[in-house]
């Protein structure tokens, strides 16, 4: 089981001080947070991709390459890579390059992006979101697996005799997750390829999340990649911890009440009751996270949202210490003890390299 953090890269005013970090400060803070994640023993750091303020992460491979140079173990990922508005040819090139530089410590999570005006900035139309995600990923999948590609589709110019360079490291394409919060089409897509499916459940009640994950698991089995409980599932989570539960609530409340995404909505208490948000002691975070397994089955990747809503860098780093020291070691032990032997871990470059050459290439698209 992999544990990590994912960032949306928001530049948000700290409501307790009124101070807003500069873009430069936020970018450097994200790097420090990633380095800290490795230091405290987390497995994954994932950055979002956004092309509009107040977000700074418009260029994920630049940031991840810089982090790769300063880390040794942590897997660098995305949350998400916009498969709709990026040219799949450029994604193929950029992430293969990153894969080489990071020694294989790279995977990606595909997402569509839900902000209508962003699409035309890149020559696209949000109403074509699903078809774009389907066609672009299909091409990306081929570019990483076929040395020479001839291709014609609906959304980009045709390719004749095109070779995407560099070729993936060891000829092993990066593992791909597909992230979606409500689209059955994307769960179906992930299942078809035998890729991972990530549900960022942080704004959703378990009943909803369960529907999408069950669909993905069922269809994963339908397409012959294994049993439903062997499908590769990732989940989000958001937590704020202090040793003492009341201290956590007191400290986090102003951030919750003023954050662009929660402010003016449900109370902190309502939100923690109805969604995975956990504000309390490390033990409460452990209990809540173990509960995800009860709801959705054994899963492979747990990403926490830690740096958002204007929380100062110092606080985020403290949170990562708590996560790495008090929460994740217990979760690793508990999840491992509960996981049946036939349920796989999330694929990594090393595991994919090890299984490469086996007779069935079950992710091949016909």
């Amino acid at each position, binding site marked *: 089981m992999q544990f990590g953090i994912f960032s949306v890269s928001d530049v948000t005013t700290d409501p307790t001080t009124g101070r807003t970090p500069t873009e430069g400060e936020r970018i450097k803070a994200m790097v420090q947070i990633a380095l800290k994640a490795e230091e405290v023993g987390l497995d994954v750091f994932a950055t979002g991709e956004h092309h509009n303020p107040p977000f700074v992460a418009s260029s994920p491979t630049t940031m991840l390459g810089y982090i790769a140079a300063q880390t040794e173990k942590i897997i660098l990922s995305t949350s998400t890579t916009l498969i709709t508005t990026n040219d799949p040819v450029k994604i193929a090139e950029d992430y293969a390059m990153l894969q080489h530089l990071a020694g294989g410590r790279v995977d990606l999570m595909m997402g569509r992006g839900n902000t209508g005006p962003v699409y035309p900035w890149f020559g696209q139309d949000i109403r074509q979101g*699903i*078809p774009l995600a*389907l*066609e672009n990923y*299909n*091409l990306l999948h081929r570019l990483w697996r076929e040395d020479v590609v001839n*291709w*014609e*589709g*609906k*959304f980009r110019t045709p390719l004749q005799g095109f070779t995407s360079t560099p070729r993936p490291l060891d000829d092993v394409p990066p593992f791909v997750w597909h992230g979606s919060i409500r689209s*059955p*089409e994307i*769960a*179906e*897509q992930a*299942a*078809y390829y035998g890729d991972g499916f990530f549900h960022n459940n942080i*704004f*959703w*009640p378990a*009943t909803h999340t369960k*529907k*999408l994950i*069950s*669909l993905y698991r069922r*269809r994963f089995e339908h*397409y012959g990649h294994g049993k439903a409980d062997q499908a590769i599932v990732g989940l989000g989570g958001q937590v704020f911890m202090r040793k003492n539960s009341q201290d956590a609530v007191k400290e986090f409340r102003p951030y919750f009440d003023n954050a662009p*995404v*929660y402010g*003016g*909505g*449900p109370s902190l208490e*309502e*939100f923690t*009751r*109805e*969604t995975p948000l956990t504000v309390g002691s490390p033990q409460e975070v452990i209990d809540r996270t173990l509960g995800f397994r009860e709801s959705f089955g054994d899963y492979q990747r747990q990403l926490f949202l830690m740096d958002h809503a204007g929380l100062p860098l110092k606080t985020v780093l403290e949170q990562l210490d708590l996560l790495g020291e008090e929460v994740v070691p217990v979760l690793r032990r508990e999840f491992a003890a509960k996981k049946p032997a036939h349920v796989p871990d999330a694929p990594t470059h090393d595991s994919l390299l090890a299984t490469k050459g086996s007779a069935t290439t079950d992710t091949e*698209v016909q």
Partner: protein
Amino acid sequence: MTRKLVTVTAGLSNPSSTRLLADRLTAAAEEALADRGEKAEVRVVELRDVAHDVMNAMTTRVPTGELPGILEDVAGADGIIAVTPVFNASYSGLFKSFFDIVEPGVLDGKPVLVAATGGSPRHSLVLEHALRPMFSYTRSVVVPTGVYAASEDWGAGGNGGRELSERVARAARQLALLATENAPAAAEDPYEEPTPFADLMSGLGA
């Protein structure tokens, strides 16, 4: 067989004339169903009771409190009675907000009886210019007779409220007919029956 009715009422005071109209329509619909040999299972939703939850869902999409159960009942209803007070020449904001958070497709084909209350008969066309278009947009089957009740319809007018009673009974009969004849809502669940990948890719480059 048992038909499920959900009455949604957006009155704010207690008691409100909107709730009064909602209760009369509900009782009339039960009676009309009984005349057709059908039983009725009724849930009356006072939107005031879930006003904060409606706003929570509006701002963060997270349905809190009783709201998830209510939305489920709306989705499973054979017929809906929707009653709003007239505010600023239209439905109330709370009434609109509630139907704004009902998932797209849920009201498709669902029989809806529209009704409104107001202090003046001058707003009676609110049914035709606000409620009926909204429910047409959601592809509901709107009952031909809408019921508007102004202050004078409650008995102060010349004919002692008889016209209102007749309209209530007529609208309820029409709702009962639609709720009975409509096949029980069996909306396709895309999470149960997804479009196969090959169909999704149809027409796209592969």
